């Protein structure tokens, strides 16, 4: 038995007392780092949020300087400060607000029709054999048609008005919702269906108590994708034919070389996308409180 003097707290006994600090040889003891051991050497850091913002701040600073110095021409890309004033002016004149409102309405219509239709189709296909035969094959087939290519057909059928735009959004929104919900119905724990059998649930009760709550997580997943798809398709339809809305602003600004207006419209799209995604997440958190890990 030997006792090392430099680490008085640790007693090592046994035939081969390898010192804890020496790496390698034999079954010795090693000191694991604890908070006490790592104590005073720590450096104070900026709060995490500020640290993360530093990259973004640097990006805008470089951009502003590049525009000031003349490396960026205004018709290619305006300085951040110019874009900010342009946005402020557009807000004050009401031009931005009305464009946002028009675009938002198109997205809301697309979601309001597409999401329920996608969900209903998925329920029919997932829960009934006939539904699956009639619906699922067609959906899987259509899924591979590049959806923006269909807009030409919609314009042919419906003209260049709002209907053709909303129609494309409806179709685009349906797929993610349908696929997520249908998969969830099929992947449902068969044990829960047995339970429904054992406790004697009617088919309506089974739908209300087991199937619908069970598909909610997948539904929200589909909804989040649907919201992203809706904004993406909106940008497209508003740029090929529109007489108002954010996309129309972009097309107009392009003809007049107003890069700042283009950026303002793009930022508006981004903020709208961010806010709508946030709203869906908020609803999801409230509705899915029961989920483990929430």
């Amino acid at each position, binding site marked *: 038995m030997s006792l090392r003097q430099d680490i008085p707290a640790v007693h090592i006994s046994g035939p081969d007392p390898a010192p804890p600090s020496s790496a390698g040889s034999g079954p010795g003891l090693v000191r694991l780092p604890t908070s006490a051991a790592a104590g005073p050497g720590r450096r104070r850091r900026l709060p995490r949020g500020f640290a993360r913002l530093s990259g973004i701040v640097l990006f805008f600073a470089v951009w502003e300087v590049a525009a000031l110095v003349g490396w960026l021409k205004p018709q290619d890309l305006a300085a951040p400060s110019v874009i900010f004033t342009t946005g402020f002016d557009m807000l004050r004149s009401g031009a931005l607000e009305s464009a946002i409102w028009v675009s938002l309405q198109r997205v809301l219509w697309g979601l309001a029709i597409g999401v329920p239709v996608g969900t209903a189709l998925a329920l029919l296909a997932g829960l009934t054999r006939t539904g699956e035969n009639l619906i699922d094959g067609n959906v899987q087939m259509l899924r591979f048609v590049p959806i923006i290519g269909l807009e030409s057909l919609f314009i042919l059928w419906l003209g260049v008005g709002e209907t053709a735009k909303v129609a494309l959004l409806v179709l685009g929104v349906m797929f993610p919702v349908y696929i997520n919900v249908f998969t969830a119905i099929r992947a449902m724990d068969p044990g829960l269906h047995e339970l429904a*059998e054992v406790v004697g649930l009617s088919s309506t009760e089974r739908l209300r108590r087991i199937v619908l709550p069970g598909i909610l997580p997948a539904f929200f997943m589909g909804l989040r994708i649907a919201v992203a798809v809706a904004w993406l398709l909106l940008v497209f339809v508003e740029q090929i034919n529109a007489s108002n809305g954010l996309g129309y602003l972009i097309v107009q600004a392009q003809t007049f070389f107003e890069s700042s207006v283009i950026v303002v419209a793009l930022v508006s799209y981004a903020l709208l996308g961010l806010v709508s995604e946030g709203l869906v997440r908020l609803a999801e958190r409230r509705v899915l409180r*029961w*989920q483990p890990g929430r």
Partner: protein
Amino acid sequence: MSARASSTAVDAATGHGADAVVVRDLRRTFGGREVLRGIDLTVGRGQFVALLGRSGSGKTTILRALAGLDAGVEGELFVPERRAVVFQDPRLLPWADVLANVVLGQRGRDARARGLDALGEVGLVGHEYDWPKTLSGGEAQRVALARALVRKPDLLLLDEPFGALDALTRIRMHALVARLCARHHPAVLLVTHDVDEAVLLADRILVLTDGTLSLDVPVAFDGPRDRGDPRFAALRSELLAEIGVVESESAVTLGPEPSSTSTPSAGRPSPSTKEPHP
């Protein structure tokens, strides 16, 4: 005290008098393999029957047939209208709170009150609005038990309900189930592979071997059952032998390997009786 494979369906023509379960010539094949080869079984009202067998012996197949979950069985089955099942996993709806899980499928104005009563009986007062995710394994299984009790079953089917619980929780659950069954007196079929559990709880023990009932013994000693009781040990050895675990196989020897000197004394309780290896 053992009577080998003697349970012919006695006077099963009536099937509704003193019996809770009457099964005649129950058969089940899965993909050409015959899992149940003609089971005859009568369970009296209020009788607690444990069904033992190795894993894969078809115990759960019998239980599922009695639960009405298997439409592929052949033979005749008579069971009471009011049945309840407790599965090995609690099978709680994660999106419904505890009380809603207990009264799932129960209709009528008093369903809530009866649900609360049942929760009280399993000792979960105050948990009625908890989400299932917040419950421990033992608590979740007690909710499942309350869900079965609230149906006032004449036949309670327990499919290895304690199998996934830790040893200490299992001991408490045994006591709880024994107490509840003594109070409500349903006929019980407990499927298990734990011999001690069967001897501890049941009035009668069946052993399923190769698709037939190879042993049918009453558990004849009354009073509190104690593992130290020699009759407990004797019955336990008999059951283990029937399942195909010999005592030397189940004895655990501590010390350096190989252990050539270990000679386990017959009848001595040894800790490794769960899940006999085939």
